């Protein structure tokens, strides 16, 4: 048989197959497309966001060989240190930079102001070089002129020559726009000025934010950096460009992996649909394939043909998925930003650029999924005994099935403890691999226990005295256990995944809700974005006419503990050393600190990322030095995934810190709520401050929460539809396989209604088995997601909270849908005229 002929025959059969089973084929194709689209979209978006970040980083920071910076946001790099480093013969240039956030004329959102030295910046950060505007009459950069990025100029509607006031806390600087930044990126909001002028207005005089170093070309970067790191004072660190990209990638890694697992689930359900479609296709065409075998189609070709048909579903599906994934990526970045609502990157819409290799990888994944789905049907087709298949049709499994069946109950019993053991494993490379594997095992256990439960349910029922149609339904399942099994496993998988997601999200939401209760004790909150609150306001609040019963101030700083990880938040709050639990939701014991030592209370993520426990001490990079602090306890925090440290204002001041509040919690005097709002209003307009009551913050937090699970909800719906469709396809096929038998019954005097009721009962019974197991698996997987995956991937701990009404309502809805699906299957089968079915020999 030549290759050409083989192709022609394959093509004839594939075309015939597509023509006769359009709906099933199309839906399998769509499921594969969905999986590929999702995975590919996540990849594209993340790639674009990372590239975007790297570009932004390069344009603002330039491309230095090393960056010297303070470990905490309140700290700074002394100029003396930079001067000393500059004396190192390996160093070509050290560019001192001050980076700070200022508001322009009291606009609400602050922009970045970069103070640099023109000559050193030319060597390290060419993208930040300003261009003097010839029209601007006022002074150049050395004379105190300021330069704005084109985007900022556009946003402000200003041109060179305009004057503006820069505000940071109580300090103000009135200056003139002297030109623009021609190399700034089109979406960058940026101001550049000479470093001396920035120092003069916003201080400090003898220190800067960062020193950016260019080394001589023949220097070994790695060893120079590590040598310097040894010599640097405790509060400083040396950072490389790789650290920045690693940090950004770490930022959204767990979230991305989680979404990728969801994409994988979609791909797997696609594989399942291909499986259901191809299995029924093989069953329906068993006599045809047997005939082809008699005519001389080799066994290898009978195997290949089914695989090819799977591929014929998967390849176009994957192709469609790529297109869909691209469209999704573009749409999502515009609607939700570069993090799919995860909140990790700033709200820019990065440019999506597809590359060939990843596209090919995702194409291959889609094809692999469809091939995997077609494997077992292909094997069954290869093993069909020809003479027998011609005579009586599809044989449900290889002859060895009887011994395998007796071993089946053992499988779930063996796998369940294995799944439990997997949940006890620590995270692998900070990812909950054990948890994910346990989820897969739970699904396998569920599918493997389906025959057991089927036997129990149907065995019990068949001993009851039942009317004839019901008895027939039971016998049907007993005679076609494979089909019943396939239909049930589709439902088990889809219902388990959906229920588990519902359980996890609901547990999480309840936990966030409780947590918000605890962390938002005040009725009113006020904050300034990143710049300290004006002294004037703080002083006014102390006056007796301020309508507040109580005011708590707090400052937010940030610390770098590991340059490859996102920064840790340092919350300086008015806490009592003896009673921090009044404000922080502690999860464990609260330890009494030694009297002579400052105490901090760390958040749960902090404890897990850095493996810390109460009672230990921590070397905290603070205020340019390292301070030993006592860890007094661990509190729950769902807001800062990368860790937070709370310290009392008194301890902070005692350590020499400068307490500059950025946030206020306000308790208005009873009955004076509206007066309080009115009192705050002028301040908030004048200084661009945000005022929100706790109900609004709570609502916003929950809506952000819901938004970040939007993708999950969409997938749940898709999973349920796929499961139901799998049930309909397999039921229809198993009924079709028995069309002759049903017609015979029809000829014996059963009417169509009775037959159709029997088929519906069969579908309902299968659905009940699937839903019962699916529910059990769903609770198990929900528990794994809540207690293993969430803490390991995101460091979020919470207790399990099963929304029984929602889950049971979902189960009932699915059951109803299953009955409708089997009604459709029954109609298909009983619509054929009895005589025709009986007359046709196949």
């Amino acid at each position, binding site marked *: *048989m030549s290759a*050409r*002929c083989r192709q022609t025959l394959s093509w004839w059969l594939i075309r015939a197959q597509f023509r006769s089973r359009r709906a099933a084929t199309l839906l399998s194709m769509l499921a594969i497309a969905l999986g590929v689209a999702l995975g590919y979209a996540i990849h594209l978006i993340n790639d674009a966001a990372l590239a975007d970040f790297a570009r932004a980083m390069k344009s603002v920071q330039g491309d230095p060989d090393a960056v010297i910076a303070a470990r905490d946001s309140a700290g700074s790099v002394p100029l003396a240190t930079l001067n000393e480093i500059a004396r190192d013969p390996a160093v070509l240039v050290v560019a001192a930079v001050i980076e700070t956030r200022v508001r322009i004329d009291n606009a609400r959102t602050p922009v970045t102001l970069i103070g640099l030295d023109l000559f050193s910046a030319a060597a390290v950060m060419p993208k930040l070089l300003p261009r003097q505007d010839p029209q601007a009459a006022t002074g150049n950069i050395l004379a105190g002129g300021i330069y704005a990025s084109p985007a900022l100029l556009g946003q402000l509607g200003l041109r060179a020559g305009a004057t503006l006031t820069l505000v940071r806390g109580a300090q103000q600087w009135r200056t003139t726009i002297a030109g623009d930044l021609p190399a700034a990126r089109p979406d960058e909001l940026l101001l550049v000025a000479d470093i001396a002028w920035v120092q003069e207005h916003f201080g400090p005089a003898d220190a800067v934010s960062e020193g950016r170093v260019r080394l001589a070309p023949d220097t070994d970067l790695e060893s120079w950096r590590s040598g310097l790191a040894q010599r640097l004072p405790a509060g400083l660190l040396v950072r490389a460009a790789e650290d920045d990209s690693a940090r950004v990638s770490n930022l959204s890694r767990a979230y991305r992996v989680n979404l990728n697992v969801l994409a994988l689930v979609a791909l797997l359900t696609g594989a399942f649909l291909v499986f259901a479609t191809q299995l029924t296709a093989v069953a329906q065409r068993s006599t045809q394939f047997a005939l*082809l075998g*008699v005519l001389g*189609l080799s066994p290898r070709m009978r195997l290949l043909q089914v695989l090819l048909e799977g591929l014929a579903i998967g390849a176009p599906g994957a192709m469609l998925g790529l297109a869909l994934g691209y469209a999704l990526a573009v749409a999502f970045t515009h609607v939700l930003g570069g993090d799919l609502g995860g909140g990790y990157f700033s709200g820019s819409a990065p440019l999506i650029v597809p590359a060939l290799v990843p596209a090919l990888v995702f194409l291959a994944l889609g094809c692999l999924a469809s091939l995997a789905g077609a494997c077992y049907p292909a094997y069954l087709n290869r093993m069909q005994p020809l003479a027998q298949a011609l005579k009586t049709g599809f044989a449900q499994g290889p002859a060895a099935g009887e011994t395998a069946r007796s071993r089946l109950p053992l499988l779930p019993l063996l796998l369940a403890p294995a799944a439990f053991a997997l949940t006890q494993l620590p995270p692998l490379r900070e990812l909950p691999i054990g948890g994910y594997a346990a989820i897969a095992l739970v699904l396998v256990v569920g599918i493997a226990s389906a025959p057991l439960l089927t036997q129990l349910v149907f065995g019990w029922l068949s001993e009851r005295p039942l009317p004839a149609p019901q008895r027939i339904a039971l016998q049907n399942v007993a005679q076609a256990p494979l089909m019943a099994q396939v239909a049930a496993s589709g439902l088990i998988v889809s219902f388990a995944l959906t229920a588990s997601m519902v359980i996890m999200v609901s547990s999480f939401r309840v936990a966030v809700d409780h947590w918000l209760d605890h962390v938002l004790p005040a009725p009113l909150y006020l904050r300034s974005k990143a710049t300290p609150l004006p002294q004037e306001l703080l002083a006014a609040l102390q006056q007796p006419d301020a309508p507040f019963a109580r005011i708590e101030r707090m400052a937010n700083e940030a610390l770098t503990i590991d340059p490859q990880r996102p920064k840790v938040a340092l919350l300086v709050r008015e806490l009592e050393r003896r009673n921090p639990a009044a404000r922080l939701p502690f999860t464990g014991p609260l330890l009494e600190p030694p009297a002579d030592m400052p105490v901090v209370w760390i958040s749960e993520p902090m404890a897990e990322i850095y493996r810390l426990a109460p009672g230990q001490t921590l070397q905290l990079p603070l205020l340019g030095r390292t301070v030993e602090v006592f860890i007094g306890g661990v509190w729950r925090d769902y807001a800062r995934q990368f860790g937070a440290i709370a310290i009392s204002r008194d301890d902070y001041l005692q350590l020499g810190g400068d307490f500059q509040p950025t946030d206020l919690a306000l308790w208005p005097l009873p009955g004076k709520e509206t007066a309080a709002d009115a009192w705050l209003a002028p301040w908030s307009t004048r200084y661009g401050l945000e005022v929100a009551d706790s109900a609004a913050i709570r609502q916003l937090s929950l809506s952000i929460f819901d938004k970040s699970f939007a993708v999950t909800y969409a997938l749940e719906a898709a999973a349920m539809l796929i499961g139901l469709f799998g049930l309909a396809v397999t039921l229809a096929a198993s009924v079709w396989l028995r069309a002759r038998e049903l017609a015979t019954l029809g000829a014996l005097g059963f009417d169509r209604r009775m037959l159709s009721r029997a088929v519906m009962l069969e579908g309902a019974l299968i659905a009940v088995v699937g839903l019962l197991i699916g529910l059990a698996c769903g609770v198990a997987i929900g528990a794994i997601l809540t207690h293993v995956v969430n803490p390991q991937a995101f460091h979020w701990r919470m207790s399990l909270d099963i929304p029984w009404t929602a889950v049971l309502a979902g189960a009932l809805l699915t059951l109803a849908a299953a009955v409708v699906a089997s009604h459709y299957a029954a109609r298909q089968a009983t619509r054929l005229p009895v005589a025709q079915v009986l007359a046709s020999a196949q």
Partner: protein
Amino acid sequence: MLTVTDLAKRHRRARRPLFSALDFSVAAGEIVALVGESGVGKSTLLNCIAGLETADSGSIAIGPQALDIVRLDESARAALRARSIGFVFQAFHVLPTLTVAQNIGVPLLLCGIPTSEHPARTQALLDGVGLAGFGPRWPASLSGGELQRVAIARALVHRPALILADEPTGNLDPRTADEVLALLLERVREQQTSALVVTHSQHVAQCCDRTLTLTPDGLR
């Protein structure tokens, strides 16, 4: 063209062998009728000859090269069937998802004959079985007699050395059965092909060159 030597077959779990020590041959161009009581093993014998079931012992030499199908592996058997054997069943077995012409084209593809040569050969056979113009039609729209003619065309189109027919007229009314049988024998004679025809009909047996009777004790 077909030589069966010392053939024995016992079904799994059956108490006694269905047949043993069968010896017979069918010469080139010879048409042999195989008769016998129901359940005596005629279909099983045919299946063994076609390699669909495996004989326990003995040999079955088929075609000009006298390949022993008992000793071949599964894919070699399939290849031998594709080249040298044409099969006609009581239950027609025409593929419902392919057109009549495509159905007849399948054995040509399996023999490696390119599609460009199909129309001429298919046409000739359709004319030969009296179905000129039926090529583009779907099997569902054909009568039983017509379907069996398609099956006959399909069995002959690749000019096999041996035709195996298992009660080819069993599903047809007497008049159609006569017509179809006459057609089958005529085409087989025309192509100088050997044939083994299982039948319960005295009339069919008489039309063949020779009759073999299978009994529980062996061939008569």
